[in-house]
């Protein structure tokens, strides 16, 4: 058994955090997309990061495939990688932009913001 700190974190082992939503600030100006996007010039997109290891937590809403893969990974890590931590729910954002005909267009783009992460 490894010793635990006051916060329950393990010592003596490279610990990776469990799959969760992490901040990801997108700046269209830095991407060079401000030549056609009028607004927004930036937004909070989030991203998913962390490991999907055994036992999978229910809030990660694992797919049946992820459950099997995680189980196999726990039995033989060298043969099977863990399942992937990926967006499980995404939401849209509104974008105002200039199209190829120089017209101003408002569009609601799907799947732009990570609402939650899960094991897939």
């Amino acid at each position: 058994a490894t010793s635990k700190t006051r916060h329950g974190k393990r010592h003596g082992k490279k610990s990776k955090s469990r799959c969760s939503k992490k901040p990801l600030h997108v700046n269209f100006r830095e991407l060079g997309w401000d030549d056609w996007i009028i607004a927004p010039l930036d937004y909070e997109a989030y991203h998913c990061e962390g490991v999907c290891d055994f036992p999978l937590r229910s809030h990660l809403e694992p797919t049946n495939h992820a459950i099997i893969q995680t189980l196999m990974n726990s039995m033989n890590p060298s043969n099977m990688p863990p399942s992937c931590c990926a967006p499980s729910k995404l939401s849209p954002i509104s974008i105002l932009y200039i199209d190829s005909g120089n017209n101003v267009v408002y569009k609601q783009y799907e799947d732009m913001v990570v609402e939650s992460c899960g094991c897939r």
Partner: protein
Amino acid sequence: GQTLAIFPPAPPKSSLVAKIFDGQEASKYFKELYAPPSLDRSNKATPKDLIEPHDYMLSIYKTFSTAEKLGLNASFFRSSKAANTIASFVDTGEDDLPLSPLRRQQYLFDVSTLSERAEVLGAELRIYTKVSGNFRISETEPVDIQLLSCRNQQLLDSRTLDLQDSHQPKWEVLDVWEIFKEQQHLSHGTHFCLELRAMLDNPERELDLHLLGLHRHARPQQKKAILVVFTRSKRRQTLFSERQEGRALLGLERKPRERGLGTKTSRRRRT
């Protein structure tokens, strides 16, 4: 500026929305968006530098993006007509001579960028009017705005102008959805053209459109008439395709047919 009327579902959210939309002019709200970037990557003019969005489009963005942040679905608003894409097309028509009487005007819109696959849910013609101080009109004499076909001058639609407080500039909104759908079918979706005239009843005569402030001479970009088309696309659209279009527009990337399909360089680039 014209702020959209919004009809959110629950009263508490409604009051919150009302607080956010306090009548502030959309163009002022967006002032910081147009501030020059601190790091100028190139000196090339971008479409954004050349195009000034109409306040109506800024208002649409402001309303719907704020609604999104409040957890409301933008397509719920009546003004959105359940569309997920709202495109504006600026009138490219021209008047004949600036000083001669203007009895009719042709409004012309290049709608070639409109996706053929998208379902059109609505179309509005928005024209900026400002009744001239020289124009005296009695309450019994209504002014009818009539829309005619550019091809055969057939009357398509008509509406009576509300001339109460008429000396204040305002945007007249004409529903042209039915006309648009018909013309889209006939013109294969490249251009949309409407002829406009204003009629007085007694005796029946055409009004000089100068009197309604409809002349185009020295009209700033933001006061030009726009055609607003509301569409809904079922196909998932990626940002990448829009980006490609934007770069092609700037000459950063040429379309395949322009750069020659057969060369080794182009083949490598495609690979």
